[in-house]
């Protein structure tokens, strides 16, 4: 190996020698993912047989408070 080729390889040799040192210093920072608040409204529709529907429909027509039976 002549003198000029040693100089040509010098940067690569320096990098190779430094790489293990750099590896110990790697520090990657990640930014939290931020999304604006989202407000979702979902309707769930309960389907029942007509007889049951009638039963609950009748009850819904009554007062929202549960009436006490007459003693």
């Amino acid at each position, binding site marked *: 190996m002549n003198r000029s080729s040693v100089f040509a390889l010098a940067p690569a040799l320096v990098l190779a020698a430094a790489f293990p040192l750099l590896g110990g210093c790697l520090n990657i920072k*990640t930014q*939290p*993912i*931020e*999304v*604006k*608040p*989202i*407000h*979702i*409204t*979902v*309707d*769930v*529709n*309960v*389907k*029942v*047989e007509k007889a*049951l*529907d009638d*039963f*609950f429909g009748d*009850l*819904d027509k009554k007062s*929202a*408070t*549960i009436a*006490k*039976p007459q*003693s």
Partner: protein
Amino acid sequence: MSEIRVGQLVLRDVAAGFAFAGPAEIDVSQASLQALGGRVAAEPFKYFLNLRELEAVLSVDGISVAEVMALTPDLPAKASGQVNGRLPIRIDSGGLRLGSGWLELRPGVYAEVQFKASGLLTGGLAAGSPSYAVLQKIEAGLLKLKLTTLRLEVRPPDAPAGRSARLHLEGEPVDREVKAPVILDLNVNGPIERLLDLGLDSRVSFSGKQ
């Protein structure tokens, strides 16, 4: 009484204090039991033997959200946590009916929800919007939400006709690297009792839309 099974419900440590107030009237001064991972106690009520119906106001303490949700088949979500609340009930030949009451998260108990409902949160969003990817992960169950608020209002006085319940959820992804506050209001139209599969009736189906 150590254990009673009512359909799918297992009631433990059932205790009651009562007195006959007449030939067909029983005054129940106190009643309590363990169910769904928590404690349920009834406020004093009267039971009329000839009417074959029961009305009472229940105080709920520390009931498991997971066990309550397990009463609804095919629910597209899993959740943990405990709830407290107060619910009037009526039981007669037609089954169980809930009156105006509420359940909400028990303070100090960790609660989270994991959805499995594609389109629940992204249904109204453009696929390229910044929040789309995060919300898609939440609705697919890849990101769980830590719940800060959970409140179920049953037959709220201000609800429109036909609406039997309103569930309000607020939460953020459990992953602290993802800041995506989600507020979800779920309105139940039709009798909420039909969503509770107590093992007594299977004539029910439900559908949802945004």
